[in-house]
């Protein structure tokens, strides 16, 4: 009997994977997963260009500079003082701006911009009539700092939106889609236990979403690290927990697919219109920090947030309520988070298995 179940499970998974992985209707999931990859590829391109430009400026400056040298330039210094401090600039831009001096008089003010770099940061000095009026020191890309940005994109865009909507589309359609296509009865007409059918469909959805989103996450990480110098990259990966973070993100992606998948599988069975459960789950996950402790645990994001390896700091000036949404004031331990999420998912799957046994074929009501 069990070998039959296993063969049937594989048959269901094969059918379902064909629909998701290789069908045109599954293309949108690839697009959702690809967008953040493209974003970080654009980031890598931008980083490369900035680094290239800064290296170029540093090379063409009169002398090698340090960060302290750049900081030594202050507002109010004259051209000569700046040149004496940091040398002749790699590039100079000069222009004139007319300004009114009296009732019918005007004169041209001379503006100049000097550009310096130490290879990591850039210094822009804008002179008006020979005096430094604007002094800007701009940081180049810092891997350690940008890893926090990466964490923010992962937590607030990739988890809560990309994986959320990707799982919505895949898991909600496992049964609801068959009902709308009027093809569910073919599964029910086969000598297969409905629980096996449900398990097969869920596993197929999980394999599909996990594969696509884990691949996306790996590509994002690769694109993110691509533009940095190998020394900087290796330092981050092997000495600053970069590799552990990358592995954690992959694990969290899989867990998110499990959690959201179970939720949307059950929603697809109980609700004809997914807008209602989608909106409810979106809002529920959004207000999770404000819920009582018991209700907090009935949520996917509650466990996933605790597993994220990098804390995203609250931007200064953010209202306290919004700050609460971003921060995670009561994180739980990793084993508890994993166990909790899997338990919630299993409960959802159990309820789905009860519901699938009770399902009837009545397409006319759809």
């Amino acid at each position, binding site marked *: 009997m069990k070998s039959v179940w296993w063969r049937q499970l594989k048959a269901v998974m094969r059918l379902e994977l064909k629909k998701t992985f290789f069908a045109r209707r599954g293309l949108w999931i690839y697009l959702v997963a690809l967008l*953040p990859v493209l974003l970080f590829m654009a980031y890598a391109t931008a980083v490369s260009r900035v680094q290239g430009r800064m290296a170029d400026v540093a090379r063409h400056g009169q002398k090698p500079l340090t960060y302290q040298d750049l900081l030594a330039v202050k507002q109010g210094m004259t051209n000569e003082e700046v040149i004496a401090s940091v040398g002749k600039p790699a590039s100079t831009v000069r222009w004139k701006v007319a300004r009114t001096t009296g009732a019918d008089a005007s004169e041209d003010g001379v503006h100049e911009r000097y550009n310096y770099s130490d290879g990591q940061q850039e210094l822009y000095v804008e002179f008006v009539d020979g005096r430094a009026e604007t002094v800007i020191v701009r940081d180049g890309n810092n891997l350690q700092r940008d890893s926090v940005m990466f964490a923010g994109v992962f937590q607030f865009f990739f988890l809560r939106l990309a994986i959320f*909507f990707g799982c919505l589309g895949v898991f909600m*359609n496992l049964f609801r889609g068959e009902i709308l296509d009027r093809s569910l009865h073919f599964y029910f007409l086969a000598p297969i236990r409905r629980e096996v059918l449900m398990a097969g469909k869920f596993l197929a959805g999980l394999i599909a979403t996990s594969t696509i989103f884990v691949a996306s996450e790996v590509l994002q990480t690769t694109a993110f690290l691509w533009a940095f110098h190998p020394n900087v990259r290796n330092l981050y990966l092997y000495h600053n927990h970069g590799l552990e973070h990358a592995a954690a993100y992959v694990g969290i992606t899989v867990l998110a697919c499990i959690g959201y998948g179970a939720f949307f599988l059950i929603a697809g069975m109980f609700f004809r219109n*997914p*807008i209602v459960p989608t909106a409810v789950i979106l809002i529920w996950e959004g207000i999770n920090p404000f819920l009582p402790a018991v209700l907090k645990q009935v949520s996917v994001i509650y466990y996933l947030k605790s597993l994220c390896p990098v804390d995203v700091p609250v931007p200064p000036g953010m209202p306290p309520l919004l700050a609460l949404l971003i921060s995670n004031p009561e994180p739980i331990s990793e084993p508890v988070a994993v166990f909790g999420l899997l338990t919630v998912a299993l409960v959802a799957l159990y309820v789905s298995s009860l519901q699938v046994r009770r399902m009837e074929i009545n397409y006319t009501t759809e």
Partner: protein
Amino acid sequence: MAIYRRSYKPYTGALTATWSRWLVLFRYARRNLFRSKVQTVLFTICFFYPLLCLGGIYLAHNLSFLAQIGVSGNLISIDNRFFFRLLAVQGVLAFLLTAFIGPGLISPDLANGALPLYFCRPFSRAEYIVGKSSVLAITLSQITWIPGLVLFAIQAGFAGPRWAWDNLWIAGSLILGSLIWIAILSLLAMALSAWVKWRIVAGALLLAVMFFGAGFGQAINAVLRIESGYFFNLGYLMAAVWTDLFRIESEQSLSAGDAWIALLVYCVICLGLLVRKVRAYEVVR
């Protein structure tokens, strides 16, 4: 009696005007709209905030009452910000209503093979699109610029003709701001409805376009340290247009002109999708 035994004569009576036939679609779609309890309840809820605003206008012009309950007379100020907030709230409700109504406009016709039935009659694709979008346009108008104009008229009645003349531009902003939002929502909902045969998927897609688009835009801005990500955020674009229309100072990163162009591009894309999909036939290979 068999048909061949009957003497068949074609209809020779008066025909309705060609220009008004799209109203047939509107009538039937509108009737179906209010068969759903959820949609009826949501439509009713859309009038709560305007009623609240009505109360606010009344209170703002009854200072003696406010003084009696110990409230400062300047608490409620009926100005451009007041109408901007009205439009913002009603705009959100309009989106929610569209998420319920919009998907059911074209998807069922596609799924059930009804498009050939429409187009085998003297009925063009343009009329079909106008007829279907009129449901959304008229329903959303009922919750956006129409109550807005009613409130404006009531305020004008209280405040006098001088106020009405000085602030007539607010009425224009209400109408234009509402119409552009209605156009965007209608075209987007119909384009998504035309592209997926399942009504429920179209609804989920509409939510995804809004939320995912906004999130993706924020991600672009955070990663690339630019402001162009806001072009993916429909809500942000609309807010930029509205703050400009209502002459409110804000720290929007996009200019109103850029926002208008972006919205126009969205409309053109949606129209293109509609033209591509709304056809009398479908080739299956």
